[in-house]
């Protein structure tokens, strides 16, 4: 079965650059790009939603089908 990828939306005006999402992503999908979190490797995303759950700033949305 073909893997469907989510859309990961980073809302930069809410992101405070805390690194939580980047550090605790189990498949290292995210990285810090300057001040903000950013998607580095969407292919690796397993849709565990931990980044969305742990973002203290409502700055990440993991949009799945």
């Amino acid at each position: 079965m073909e893997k469907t990828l989510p859309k990961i939306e980073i809302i930069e005006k809410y992101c405070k650059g805390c690194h939580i999402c980047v550090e605790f992503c189990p498949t290292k999908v995210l990285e810090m790009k300057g001040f903000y979190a950013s998607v580095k490797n969407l292919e690796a995303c397993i849709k565990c939603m931990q980044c969305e759950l742990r973002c203290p700033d409502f700055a990440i949305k993991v949009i799945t089908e």
Partner: protein
Amino acid sequence: MAFDYDKWLRPGKLPHIWCPGCGHGIVMKGLIRAMETLQLKKEETAVVSGIGCASRLPGYIDCCTLHTAHGRAAAFATGVKMAKPEMNVILVGGDGDGTAIGGNHFIHACRRNIDMTYIIMNNYIYGMTGGQFSPCTPTGHKASTTPYGNPDPGFDIAKLAIGAGATFVARGTAFHANQIDKLIVEAIQHKGFSVVEILDDCPTTYGRRNKYKSVIEMMNRLKEVAVPVKAAEKMTAEQLQGKVLTGVLYKEVKPEYIEEYAKVIERAKAAK
């Protein structure tokens, strides 16, 4: 699908006031998911707080919200709930607000077992005023007012709540985000006074004084110290050294205050 937090947030209020890496936002998201799970009606739900960083939470939630004075959330909330028992009343606040200046209201709300839920974000410090030690700051730790280490022993909030008569007591952490809403759901569903302590991080005023190099180190500490109650049953006392139990720690069925007062009303009417 991404969770729709916007449905429960007041428009135009983000970004919130909390510092980068502060766990209060994680707790607020947990609360919102719990409110959504329970399909609470916004107009019939009151979120009540005291003063401090955590107590700024109600301003963001789209329902009836009451940001009271320092320590007084439980007493205001008791008035709201007694006067309008059909409302869902949820208290939020920090460790200083709830266990120091508000300690008396806290233990008496527990004692009455009035049907409200109290979410205490315990980050071991007074954050908003700049990092003074709270009744939950561990002994020996540094705060802006314990430059040589804290001589005070800290409270165990859960034990305090159980001892005072709360009938549902749970503990989670800001790291274990997906557990927060589940604990809050169970707490709100519980008939009686329920307390959910969330171990939280304050990188700005606690972390940097206590040799935490980053938010991530603080989060990792929460991850490491937390032991679910079930897992703890199989662990030795030695293995549990320095650990903190998480999950539902205590639950009992006891007469609830609103129901007991309804009986007072019945007796008064009969005596008329």
